[in-house]
């Protein structure tokens, strides 16, 4: 949680230096969904994601050095600068692929889950999607197939109510999002996506069920994106949502919520959290330093990897 928050906030702060020359879709405010889910996933489990993937990547334990280097377009980045912020990956941490064509990654995740089922390796696949992703046809085709084949996959939907600047109410009829997945005959859950503990609990249930061979599970985590759709700023003033609405959600800050929950259970929590903060800040600082000192890819890199050998 804290790592995701600090990571995204640092990116936001340093973005204005204009040296991270690529789009960034930050997930400040949406830390609980990936943190809760990834806590429930085993290390060998795998995730797929989309354009807003940094939080997912960090929560799953992806290398900060590689991701930040990628933002700077460096040769040490996750895709050696070729993919940029929207194509995060870190195979060692089980972060298989992220792509920014909305919905495009869904069937790929399903196919990967099918392979794991064939191989009987017990790996659970989780694929992240947004509320708007549900509007793409390929998503429903993916649900249908995954359910038909009882594949070991979690469809993890972060409902933050917006597709860029368009509200859910202007895009979909008023009905529970989970109904869409339920129609394909899979277990569904809808949780408070600002409550990391709840997300964790539900994700654990999903993992258990999947590991028993019951097929896919759909989880909706209801949350809110604090900053602009793409970029480092706040944009509550441009007219697509109100400052009041944002403030309401800010009160439900997922990081504060978890902190409070911990304080109830452990009187030393505050001290421990402080230490975690310090440690993480240092880690992020080091990663930025590493990225800044890393070389850019040489021209020859442009002409590599078109075909596999």
């Amino acid at each position, binding site marked *: 949680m804290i790592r995701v928050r600090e990571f995204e906030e640092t990116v936001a702060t340093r973005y204005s230096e204009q040296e991270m*020359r*690529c*789009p960034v879709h930050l997930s400040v405010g949406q830390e609980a969904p990936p943190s809760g889910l990834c806590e429930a996933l085993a290390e060998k489990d795998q995730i797929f994601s989309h354009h807003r993937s940094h939080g997912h990547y960090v929560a799953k334990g992806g290398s900060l050095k590689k991701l930040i280097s990628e933002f700077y*377009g*460096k040769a040490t*980045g996750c*895709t050696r*600068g*070729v*993919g*940029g*912020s*929207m*194509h995060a990956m870190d195979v060692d941490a089980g972060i298989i692929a992220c*792509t*920014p*064509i*909305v*919905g495009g990654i869904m069937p790929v995740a399903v196919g990967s889950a099918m392979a794991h089922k064939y191989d009987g390796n017990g790996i659970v696949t989780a694929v992240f999607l947004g509320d*708007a*992703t549900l*509007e*793409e*046809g*390929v998503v429903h085709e993916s649900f249908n197939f995954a359910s038909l084949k009882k594949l070991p996959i979690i469809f993890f939907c972060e409902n933050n109510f917006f*597709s*860029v*600047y*368009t509200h859910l109410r*202007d*895009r*979909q009829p008023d009905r529970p999002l989970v109904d869409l997945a339920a129609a394909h005959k899979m277990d569904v859950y809808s949780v408070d996506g600002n409550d990391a503990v709840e997300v964790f609990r539900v994700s654990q249930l999903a993992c258990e069920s999947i590991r028993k061979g019951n097929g896919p599970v759909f989880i909706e985590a209801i949350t809110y994106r604090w900053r602009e759709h793409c970029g480092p700023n706040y944009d509550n003033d*441009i*007219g*697509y949502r109100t400052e009041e609405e944002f403030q309401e959600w800010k009160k439900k800050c997922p990081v504060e919520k978890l902190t409070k929950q911990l304080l109830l259970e452990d009187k030393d929590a505050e001290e421990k959290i402080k230490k975690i903060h310090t440690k993480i800040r240092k880690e992020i600082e080091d990663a930025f330093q590493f990225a800044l000192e890393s070389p*850019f*890819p040489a*021209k020859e*890199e*442009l*002409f590599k990897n*078109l075909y596999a050998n």
Partner: protein
Amino acid sequence: MQTNSSKTQRKLSYAKALVEATDICMERDPKVIMFGLGVNDPKRIFGTVGNLPEKYGKDRIFDVPLSENALTGIAVGAATMGYRAILTHQRLDFALLSLDQIINNAAKWHYMFAGQWKCPIVIRMIIGRGWGQGPQHSQSLQAIFAHIPGLKVVMPATPADAKGLFIASVEDSNPVIFLEHRWLHYLEGEVPDGYYSLPLGKSQISLEGNSVTLVASSYMVYESYRAAEALKKIGISAEVINLQTVSPLDLETIIKSVKKTGHLVVADTGHASFGVPAEIISRVTENCFSALKSAPVRIACPDYPAPTTFALAKHYYPRSSDIAEAVLKILGESNGFEITNNLKNIEQSLRPDVPDLKFTGPF
């Protein structure tokens, strides 16, 4: 079709020219409707929609769910019933989800029902470039659309082109793929007032010359123009043809020019292989081989996906120096070093991933 260049002109950005064109179309024909993701959001498709949503209301201009393929079919259906639909995509790459509806339905609608149905739709797609747009947000796939019989493919370069070609596209009875290069939206230029349309399937000579023919579309018109201006200094007078429409191709204008100059360079924003330049060069060699004094050259992006990092993107996109170099080579001109070096210096002084706003084009 009305083309009227004697009208009053005023400076307008490419984006504003599109607002004006859309407004005129909607004003003239109540059956024109427009939809697409974000058409009425605060950014208004990079400023190309203006206040039209307020002016025309939610039935005629509306935001949509994230469902490109279905929405394209919906446009086809509405067009079948007499509407003229304008569909917008903030990136061409997103429209790829609708290739089924575009290629299997829209393109063939008139033909496969023996001319009984028409499909007057305009699909606006924006070609991204720079600032880390990378492999899935910057594809320039005009060749794919131009390959499909039944589609018209338009690539305006100037603000005046944008306005005139847009109006013609909306008024056309066929599906038109309207490709806007993202960097051109900022560009300013003279735009005729009022109703103004430019014929589809016609190219324009934007600079006359007799040493070499430079054919280009969209953003590459500016790179060609810059090369042509530089080449003037050593007495090479390049003729620049602004394609405007990629398909159907205005072969006549190109052949006429090649017959005059004997040399041909074609610059395009797409990949080199199987692209628009390949088609043009092939047509020219088929039709006026004997007029050619040198082998034609194409200037295009490499046959690789676009990389994200600017460290690689700067080697990826062809620029005016590449065009000038090609011209010098085919003309056997050995003292043009300074020309290409100057161009390279200008290019290197710019960050390769943001538009060169200093060069706004003299036309």
